[in-house]
């Protein structure tokens, strides 16, 4: 379990980093927290010939408010830093609740927000949450920047829109809507494991009825899965038992997960529905209290 030979670079500026990537093309790979990438290299499942280590590049981490009340999160921000950000629960309670579900704190100490998003494990929390939140990803290359929405970024099983010469530099999360209901829930074999099934969702209410909603599941396909049919069913409806049961059924029907050694496709479909119902109920019961600005 030792990596195949590779060349190692540790640039200190983003310019250097992207020009190295430009130079090495498909042979180059970016290293962030290493929590997913190092095991793949050690198992020789990944055999990059050039490693561009981002850990000494300055200016890639940090959590800032962006102009419209949303967040600008540097890609190299450690997951633990996000978790410990005292203002995050007020600024974006769904994101704040998602981060502690990633692995164990030792992993979050090293693992970065950008690494999780680019690694794109279909069962990971952050890709699903960024899709649910309508986040944008800033991708930087020697030629400049481009912005891709989270929804467009994920292209199937561990495939994303990022090019070999690009670095994810920033994640832009839109402002949290006042009064929004939200929840995240998952089932995993052990605490800290990748979810067998998980759901991240929010609902904006107009009085007793739902005006808008987003339901995104993870662990149930190659990428985060939005169940628009279930979202449609919620719109205009009260979050009562009958509606929630309906939504559960729709989610179960709509999902097309695969089986793996931890859970069958049938399990994932059923439990996807169950978790969605439970999350909606939890969101409704919690109400708007402590729901951010």
């Amino acid at each position, binding site marked *: 379990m030792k990596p195949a030979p590779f060349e190692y670079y540790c640039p200190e500026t983003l310019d250097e980093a992207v020009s190295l990537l430009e130079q090495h093309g498909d042979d180059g790979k970016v290293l962030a927290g290493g929590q997913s990438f190092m*095991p793949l290299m050690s198992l020789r499942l990944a055999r990059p010939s050039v490693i561009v280590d981002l850990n000494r590049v300055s200016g890639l981490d940090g959590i800032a408010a962006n102009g419209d009340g949303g967040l600008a999160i540097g890609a190299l921000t450690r997951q633990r830093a996000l978790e410990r950000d005292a203002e995050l629960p007020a600024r974006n309670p769904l994101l704040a609740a998602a981060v502690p579900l990633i692995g164990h704190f030792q992993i979050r100490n090293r693992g970065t927000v950008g690494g999780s998003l680019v690694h794109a494990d279909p069962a990971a929390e952050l890709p699903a949450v960024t899709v649910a939140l309508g986040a944008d990803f800033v991708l930087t290359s020697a030629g400049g920047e481009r912005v891709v929405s989270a929804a467009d970024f994920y292209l199937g099983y561990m495939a994303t829109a990022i090019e070999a010469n690009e670095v994810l530099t920033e994640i832009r999360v839109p402002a949290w809507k006042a009064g929004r209901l939200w929840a995240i829930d998952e089932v995993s*074999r*052990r605490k800290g494991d990748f979810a067998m099934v998980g759901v991240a969702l929010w609902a904006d209410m107009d009085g007793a009825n739902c005006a808008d909603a987003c339901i995104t599941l993870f662990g149930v396909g190659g990428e985060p899965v939005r169940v628009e049919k279930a979202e449609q069913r919620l719109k205009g409806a009260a979050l009562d038992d009958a509606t929630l049961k309906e939504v559960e059924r729709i989610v179960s029907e709509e999902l097309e997960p695969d089986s793996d*050694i931890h*859970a069958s496709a049938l*399990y994932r479909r059923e439990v996807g529905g*169950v978790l969605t119902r439970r999350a909606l109920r939890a969101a409704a019961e919690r109400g708007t209290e402590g729901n951010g600005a």
Partner: protein
Amino acid sequence: MAETYIGAPIKRREDVRFITGTGTYVDDIKLPHMVHAAILRSPHAHARIRDIDTSRAEALPGVVSVFTLKDIGELDATVPIRMYKIPGLDKYLQPSLARDEVRYVGEPVAVAVAESRYLAEDALDAIDVDYEVLQEVMDVREAMEDKVLVHEHNGTNLAGVHHVSIGDADKAFAEADYTRREEFRVHRFTGNPMETRGIVAHFDRGKGELRVYGATKLPHLNRQTIAAFLQLPEHKCHFEENDVGGGFGIRGELYPEDFLIPFASVRLGLPVKWIEDRREHLLAANHSRQVTCELEIAARKDGTLLAIRAQIYGDMGAYVRTHGGLVPCSTGALLTGPYRIPNYQAKIHCVMTNKTGLGTLRAPGRVESCFYRERMLDMMARDLDLDPVELRRKNLVTPEEIPYEIGFTRPSAHPTILDSGDYASALRQALERFEYDEMKGIRGLQEDGRYHGVGLSYFVKNTGGLEPYEGARMVVGEGGGVSVFLSIAQLGQGHETAMAQICADALGVTMDAISVFHGNTDLSPFGWGTFASRGTVMAGNAVHLTALQLKDKILEAAARHLDVDASGLTLEDGNIVQPGTEAPALPLGELVAHMRESITPEQGVPELEATAYYNSNNITHTYGVHLAHVAVDPETGVLEVLKYLVVEDVGRVVNPLMVRGQTVGAAVQGIGGVVLEELVYGESGQLLTTTFLDYLLPTSTDVPPIDDLVLEEAPSPYNPLGVKGAGEGGIVGTAGALGNAVSNALGIEVKDLPLSPDRVRAWIRARGDG
């Protein structure tokens, strides 16, 4: 200070180095000019090797050597069977490197040696093997049909069969009021010591001697095999274990790598290191469990047990390894448990498949048989409308019936005898401690939306014996310090502490005067090993006997020195005293100083040492109860263990802290095995669980509250100390108790494992209301 060291809760001497990471494990051994080996393993479950080309690999910079079976040539050897040598099994042995076929994913094919492990692994990438892929067979039932053969030339996958026949089971079945037949299955999983296997072999060409570090569990036996393989005299091979990060039955057995690394060192004249990585461990070290059982029970209407019959199938994997037929045979050995079941018949099948070889894992076979039996008893209680506790109580062997001879349940010359115990007493205390009666109301759906259940299992577990002896040598030196040299190895349990306690009491010195040495074949020429919870029984009694002999020797020397009669002397806390007289105490250290400096020829020689062996084939049996309270989320199938109790009578406790550590650790391991762990094979015989991402061990965040109660009501009559082993009681009953608890919660009958959310959901779905 307690009156005796035995029984005192003394912290382990090993703790500081184990807990602070300052031990010396095999990977800490770094020798001058040491090179590193990596092993090329088969990517196929079954294939013919047409050709191996190592030329590209050999040409790589930093590569010292690449060798294949051809290079081993006439030394070619197989992993020997050491136990449970059922006739026929010896036709299925594993060679050091695959001969003409590979038979499981992970089988060693070639070895690369290089200046670093990195380079050695690069070399593996450059070895070209031409395989002709053959059909594999992965399932025992299919294998029994012999359509696909794992070893073509043997003509069958049924490698061996063992019969047990006690009383007349068929007659009892014909006459019984009640019978039931069920098929149970325990899945494949294995032990994962924190420290994987590892070997540093150093052949000194000048001396013609081989030193092997990283040997453990059975250093003398492994030395015997490797010395013969390398055609070296045994006394010129030195096996050292260093510190060991756990064994669980897996680590320390003899494997192909144990041939290959010393071979490489002899061939190259260099120290060679190989450290197993976790992927290799999961692929290549022994797997365990995976025994299927068709079990039938016969009883009277009132619940009196009359007979059991069993067809037991062990999934042996591709080669029979050191343990022979142990795993399935041990399933048969104690299938009747602590109960009076006069008629017992079993047929045990050892069946070959294209998987990794099967070996022992903490309470091998006993975890399985306890699951089958205790599940069956709960089913029977339901059928006959009997209270499951009453049913068990009624059939427990009574103290009056003990020693209770079950009969010949093993392929061995010795019958299985339950040596001592008050089984009903342990049951009563377990129920009280668990508040079992108070918990009767909490079955089924509860307010938290989950189904709750309580499950009980009763076990007996053989400890000690199996191989006849262990020895100890004891030497008194400067200051009255006592060195104890053990023949037995240590896998991390705490022999350095427990053996010092036993020695201190028997010898009459303080514990801090004692140093314990172990795990080195230079310390004693013979020894067996650390398995079957035999350490304290075998080595503990050896230490006890040696200390008594040494004490006599010390007192005789003191008598000569003091010019008194030895019968008037005794040794207390390191002082030679003459009870009932005014004579001042003579510290042992002073006697030694005298003997060292000014002993006269008339007074003898300055030698205070003794060697003794404890030699006994008698097997002691611990017994006890596991109780579990579980809650199951019916919609997700997620199981939570809310409360867990292990009660075990170990005869006599040497160190309660260590026994508790063993019990709780074993229970955690057991629960992990029942709920989380599974070695899963997928398409074309590929092992899918080759990292800890997929092979799920319980971690500190998954451990439920575990209570334990250790009893000392029934010391073993078989050994001077009255001890029984305490390493496995915490695991034996886990599958039974959890299987019963989940069945009880959901009103279903659990017959196979693991209790994963996906399976639990499937059972609920099949129940029809979920």
